């Protein structure tokens, strides 16, 4: 049993009671909602004639279905328009703040929470979306929930949960050039498996994690769920506080910052906290990781050979064989040189400003070949504006990338941005499941954003560290 970890402390502060079914009832500090998973929950609420308990602790945005090209209403896709209208009606009736595209604050739900300064250490945060784990980067306890649980939260601002075990993942050492937070988490999932985290919450710690900015920490926490852990977090520190301090919320309420800081400090895991498990990773050994298969755990260093299914644990062999057939890769080969048709820079894993900056550095002065479809979908309207102001948009468009509006886009292909046929996509997103990007024959290769940029330029998976310097004329 863990003791005195951030998880234990935040859990205890939010525990209302133990329910007759053995679960704990937890108070929810922030409920984020979007158009895909909330309408059914509002429907269930109406069926029972219940009201939204705490609209003041609820925030809505639209991300999954928004078109990223033409956003004029009504949307050309009727189903998308219906979902948007339904959300508009629900938030209006309940008095919930809605960061719609007109506000200039819209974006992927896991990008905007932190931007708004609402994602804070020691908060419980839930959303009907598995990547809610992202918010753990701030030392919040954040997890994805299903629609019936959304109903619970809307009706009571609480949630019923069982306490999990805590695994500390200690990442020491320094990252090499071209290697990023994304590679750390892909490596963790490769080693521990996509189910390795079931029943656990992950605490990410160690020098390599502390060295990361908030964006990198978010990329890691984001993919906790791909490793089976419903939540992941990093203890808050000066990096966290610096981010919070410059958000609009704390700029407007500096006194709140001073008032809350002692609480944030108090919920950090104690030095002598007890964990149910500890895992060590040496960050300095990592190289850029790319996936060769159809689960995020099927990753490999870009210069390492794709594994023989026979060399994997027995229960993974069958899945690996099917994945290699789908991806059309051969064990023993490397992923380097794997032809791609599409490059997608986006998603709640890797579409924040520093991600776009690093990718822009790679594409600057280079050209995407004609047979590659490359596009950038910023994580939020704020990211988009900032990137445009500092000239990143121009860098991308001059190199032949399409520059889009904020949304989930090809991360899951619920809008018009989809793979076609058996196209292969170098993607900065988090899931490479069959069919995920809109075509059931589509092939997704997950990698960090610099690697996506390099793949776009060469039309094939490329070790970004081998790209030659662009000689300026």
């Amino acid at each position, binding site marked *: 049993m863990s003791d005195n970890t951030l998880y234990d402390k935040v859990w205890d502060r939010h525990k209302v009671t133990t*329910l007759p*079914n*053995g679960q704990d009832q937890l108070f929810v500090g922030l409920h984020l909602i979007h158009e895909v998973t909330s309408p059914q929950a509002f429907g269930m609420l109406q069926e029972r004639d219940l009201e939204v308990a705490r609209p003041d602790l609820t925030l809505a945005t639209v991300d999954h279905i928004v078109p990223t090209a033409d956003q004029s209403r009504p949307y050309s896709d009727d189903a998308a328009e219906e979902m948007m209208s339904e959300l508009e009606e629900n938030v209006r009736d309940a008095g919930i703040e809605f960061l719609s595209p007109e506000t200039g604050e819209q974006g992927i739900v896991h990008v905007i929470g932190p931007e708004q300064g609402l994602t804070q250490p020691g908060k419980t945060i839930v959303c009907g979306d598995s990547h809610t784990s992202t918010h753990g980067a701030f030392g919040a306890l954040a997890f994805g929930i299903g629609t*019936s649980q959304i109903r619970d939260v809307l009706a*009571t601002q609480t949630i019923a949960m069982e306490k999990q075990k805590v695994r500390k993942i200690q990442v020491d050492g320094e990252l090499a050039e071209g290697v990023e937070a994304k590679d750390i988490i892909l490596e963790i999932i490769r080693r521990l498996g996509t189910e390795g985290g079931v029943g656990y919450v992950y605490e990410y710690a160690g020098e390599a994690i502390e060295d990361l900015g908030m964006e990198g920490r978010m990329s890691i926490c984001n993919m906790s769920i791909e490793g089976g852990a419903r939540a992941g977090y990093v203890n808050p520190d000066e990096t966290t506080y610096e981010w919070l301090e410059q958000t609009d919320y704390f700029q407007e309420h500096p006194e709140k910052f001073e008032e809350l800081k002692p609480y944030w400090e108090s919920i950090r895991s104690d030095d002598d906290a007890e964990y149910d498990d500890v895992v060590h990773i040496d960050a300095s050994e990592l190289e850029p990781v790319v996936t060769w298969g159809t689960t995020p755990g099927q990753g490999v260093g870009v210069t390492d050979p794709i594994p023989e299914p026979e060399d994997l644990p027995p229960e993974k062999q069958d899945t690996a064989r099917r994945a290699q057939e789908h991806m059309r890769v051969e064990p023993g080969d490397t992923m380097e040189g794997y032809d791609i048709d599409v490059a997608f820079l986006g998603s709640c894993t890797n579409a924040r400003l520093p991600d776009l900056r690093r990718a822009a550095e790679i594409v600057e002065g280079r050209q995407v070949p004609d047979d590659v479809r490359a596009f950038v979908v910023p994580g939020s309207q704020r990211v988009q504006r900032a990137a445009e102001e500092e000239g990143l948009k121009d860098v991308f468009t001059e190199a032949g990338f399409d520059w889009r509006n904020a949304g989930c886009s090809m991360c899951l292909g619920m809008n018009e941005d989809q793979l076609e046929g058996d196209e292969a996509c170098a993607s900065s997103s988090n899931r490479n499941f069959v069919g995920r990007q809109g075509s059931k024959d589509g092939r997704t290769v997950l990698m960090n954003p610099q690697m996506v940029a390099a793949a776009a330029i060469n039309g094939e998976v490329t070790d970004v560290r081998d790209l030659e310097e662009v000689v300026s004329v």
Partner: protein
Amino acid sequence: MSREADEVEIPEVKEVTGSGIPIRGNDIDTDQIIPARFMKVVTFDGLGEFSFFDQRFDDEDEPKDHPMNEDRFQDANIMVVNANFGCGSSREHAPQALMRWGIDAFIGESFAEIFAGNCLALGMPTVTGDQETIEDLQNFVDENPDAEIDIDVADETVTYDGKTVDVTVDEGQRKALVDGIWDTTALMKANQQAISETADGLPYV
């Protein structure tokens, strides 16, 4: 404390009886169970026919080989699956779709946690057994699609073919199903006072 006027009757799920359908393979994710393109809906009604759509139909919407397309399994209400079933996204659309197709319970080697939680919220057990138990059951169901299978949630057993095998039901899930306390909205709404007190104790609320 006063009972809520909106309280709903929550049925007890002590037992599920019916016939089985085997869905083989590990790591079957929710994108396979219900592809994202069918989630552009504002209610769950009508999702059933899109369950496993891309496994069941080809590009021309012609049926492919899949147990859910076979006549002999059309009345099945117990899905027998392998390891890590329902991994991937937290979409409740997945169990909702399978429930609407006709499934009342799952027996498998293991389930993704959120998927199991979503099932519980619908009153559907996710019962687990070891690999051998599950494969035996899958083979049996394949050969005897009409045979009766009985899941005893309270006793943690599955009875079929004249024998009873041990399975596991997560402790919390078992209690919730057997005692009819799996509808958490009703359970939690009753604690209004304690909710307010907890909120008052939080510096940020």
